[in-house]
């Protein structure tokens, strides 16, 4: 075991290796490790953020559903109101129509009755004249006794 120039040679090569390792080996590998560490941290943060966003979205969706439900209830209410209005209106219409029809029918009936009465009266007058003439066996001048017949007819 001789100590000689090898010592200095080893010292120099050691220095070169350390320098090289520091510059070209350690720094890039450590850089990559740091980058990955940061990426993972960012990813985790993003995931957490996403989860938070999802919570918010859920909350918003609930809100929207609640609002929609309220609107739907309102619409149904209005529709029901409108429907009962329509029913009431048509009921009113029907009632007035039926009253009108009834009135018309009554008027017609009255007219018919009047006409029938007039006819009946005439026929009764004719019959009365005919009957009287048969009883008297002579011609009654209808014209001459017109006022009597008329009177008679009036009495019926």
């Amino acid at each position, binding site marked *: *075991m*001789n100590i000689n120039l*090898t010592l200095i040679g*080893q010292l120099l*090569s050691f220095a070169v290796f*350390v320098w090289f390792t520091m510059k*070209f080996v350690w720094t890039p590998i450590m850089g990559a*490790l740091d980058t990955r560490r940061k990426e993972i941290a960012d990813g985790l943060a993003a995931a957490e953020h996403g989860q938070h966003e999802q919570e918010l979205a859920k909350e918003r969706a609930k809100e929207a559903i609640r609002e929609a439900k309220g609107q739907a209830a309102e619409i149904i209410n209005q529709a029901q109101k409108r429907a009962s209005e329509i029913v009431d209106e048509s009921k009113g219409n029907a009632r007035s129509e039926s009253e009108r029809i009834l009135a018309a029918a009554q008027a017609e009936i009255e007219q018919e009755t009047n006409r029938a009465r007039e006819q009946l009266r005439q026929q009764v007058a004719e019959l009365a004249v005919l009957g009287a003439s048969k009883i008297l066996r002579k011609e009654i001048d209808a014209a001459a006794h017109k006022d009597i017949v008329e009177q008679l007819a009036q009495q019926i």
Partner: protein
Amino acid sequence: MAGDTLTSSEYIKHHLTNLTFGQHSDGTWGLAHSAAEAKEMGFWAIHVDTMFWSILLGGLFIYFGKKIADRVTAGVPGGMQNFAEWLVEFIDDSVRGSFSGRNPLVAPLALTIFVWIFLQNLMDLVPVDVIPYLAGAIGIHFMKVVPSTDPNATFGMAIGVFMLTLYYSIKIKGVGGFMGELTLQPFSSDNPIVKLLFIPINFVLEFVSLIAKPISLALRLFGNMYAGEMIFILIAIMYNAGVVLGLFGGVLQLGWAIFHILIITLQAFIFMTLTIVYLDMAHNDH
């Protein structure tokens, strides 16, 4: 193998000799042909095998490290990147656990130390004769393949770490602060004269503990790896002692290699952790 013409001690000695390049005693430059010749070359010689294997292994590390780092993605990682990320996070956790300051150098330094020492130690698991035998076949006589069994390699790293601790100690605490740390503790007094008297005592104590850091760092790794290598060599000698002992040696080698997996990882981890701790001490003001 080498045992046929060599005695056991020659075999061991052969395995523990580095391939040394330096100036011969006659003034010419070249490879040493024996351990004695290598010793004669003195300081101005270089262990070619240690340099070759450590730079090859370090080069492999930074080659694959760069390859992974170039294709690194923050998305879904591939198999290689998974492994690299596991390693990087393991180192990063260790640094975060022991280092309280902020310094972008410490974590890459720890990664380099851990991987480089681990790879150097891993060469110990290659059977001791394989690579020296192959090298011998192409005419290279000495080949020590585990760089961390060469104190030059472990001291090289430990001194590098030591220089960094000195640099950051002075940078963070200032020259005065650093000197104060060396001279004003552990003994101190409210009386200025006593305080002055304590300075040399404190300095001796603190200086020894300061110097002990790199030395213990280097020698711990070196000692563990050298001893492990030595045991592999001793087991390898058994292969020349007949069939029964040879088979026994095979079992021993397997067992020691499996146990050694723990040691090589542990030693790399200890070196790395102590480096982080020493740098942390350099950054902390008392």
